[in-house]
């Protein structure tokens, strides 16, 4: 049962991830990316027992960030005619960079985890809100606080960029 579900979810996530790249229409790409996030959240919740992470993934990525993506793409009204032509060199370099990144990911993941074992153990209740909060505020307090400062600076930056006239109040 679990294996079947895993196969189903994984195949949907891989297919939708591929469709993100291969869709001609950028709006469809965004929608397939949303679907990919959903299947990833499903993996977190069902196989890794990380319900909190799954739901936050949906709220933040699928619910907020992708809506803004869609927003921008709808307003830009991208289509075939307005598509900028990319030079051959940048296409080749993009392929090389992507391939290298894949290699790094592959090397990192093969050494790290034995996938079936992680699937079966369900990693206890580490994904539950209470446990996660305790770990964040004790063991990982400093990184947590530093990343919140990082977010604050990003927010200030966004407000600065959004201001029309900097001199005016």
């Amino acid at each position, binding site marked *: 049962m679990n294996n079947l579900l895993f196969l189903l979810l994984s195949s949907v996530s891989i297919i939708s991830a591929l469709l993100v790249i291969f869709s001609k229409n950028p709006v469809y790409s965004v929608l397939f990316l949303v679907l990919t996030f959903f299947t990833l959240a499903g993996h977190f919740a069902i196989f890794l027992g990380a*319900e909190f992470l799954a739901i*936050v993934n949906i709220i933040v990525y*699928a619910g907020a960030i992708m809506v803004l993506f869609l927003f921008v793409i709808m307003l830009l009204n991208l289509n075939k005619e307005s598509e900028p032509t990319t030079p051959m060199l940048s296409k080749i370099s993009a392929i090389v960079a992507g391939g290298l990144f894949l290699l790094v990911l592959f090397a990192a993941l093969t050494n790290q985890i034995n996938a079936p074992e992680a699937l079966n153990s369900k990693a206890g209740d580490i994904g539950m809100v209470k446990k996660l909060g305790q770990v964040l505020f004790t063991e990982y307090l400093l990184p947590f606080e530093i990343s919140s400062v990082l977010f604050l600076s990003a927010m200030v930056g966004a407000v600065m960029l959004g201001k029309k006239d900097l001199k005016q109040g």
Partner: protein
Amino acid sequence: MEILLFDKIFLIVIVFAVSLVIALYSTLAERKVSAFLQDRIGPNRAGTFGLLQPVADGVKFFFKEDIIPSHADKALYILGPSISMITALMTSAVIPWGTYITFSGRQVAMQIADINIGILYVFAVVSIGVYGIMIGGWGSNNKFSLLGALRASSQMISYEIAMGLSIISIVMMTGSMSLGEIVSQQHGMDWNIFYQPVGFLIFCTCAFAECNRTPFDLPECEAELVGGYHTEYSSMKLGLYLFSEYINIFISSAIMSAMFFGGYNFPFMDQIASPNLVSIIGVFVFFAKIIFFIFFFMWVRWTIPRFRYDQLMKLGWKYLIPLALANIVITGTVMLIKYQFFN
């Protein structure tokens, strides 16, 4: 296991049917309430007191010609109302409709799924709901629809933040994100509204904005945008959009009464000996609260005029979010003082 599954399926079917029937009759109630507020009679031709009016409307929707504009993106045009309807119906899964009913020696919980992140689930579904409007608005390939869709999405994203912040103070008090736990802690008359009146005000305002209801119904502002995001829709696809709005009202009312007004809890519930009787009365009490809030939604709609768009954004970002943040700080301070000195 099989009995449990059967219980759940039975409960899902009931909740599904009840949501649809309440949404169906909300359309009639809306017209009756507006008639009452404007000193008219309202629909009274179909059936006694117009009770068959929703059925007549539904039949009309089904038999109207279904037009798909030739320039529309057909797949997205169909996907839009479907997503709206699905997300509207999904939220009811975590709402605790009552406590337990015991019969033939086993307890049956009247909640479909008591997951430990219940509130976040509601937020996730609500944040997905905006796609229905956006996709429909863009897919119809019409400037007015697109403008309506953009307004809807920016409005919903803005108000989601204040809504989430207003919930945090409740979560801090309760110590749990499960809706079942939050409701059961408000036993008797110990409702959250007495501790978090500001939180309720913020949540209620945001719920109006999330449902695209007046005074925040700018996405379908007919004076500027023809019909907003559903300008191009006809027949049952339009019906689904309008219908999902009423289901959203029903679900928001249910969540408001569960989170702030004690859900199925009612005063003097400990005096009744039979637990089954308590939970049955509890269900009725919960629905009475929900129906009051549905009426409240309509009352506001026919009393208050629409905001301007910049006023809407100003209210959301400059007043509600700081207010919600202050509410969190005050709740935290009070809780700390209580913990330090009165424990």
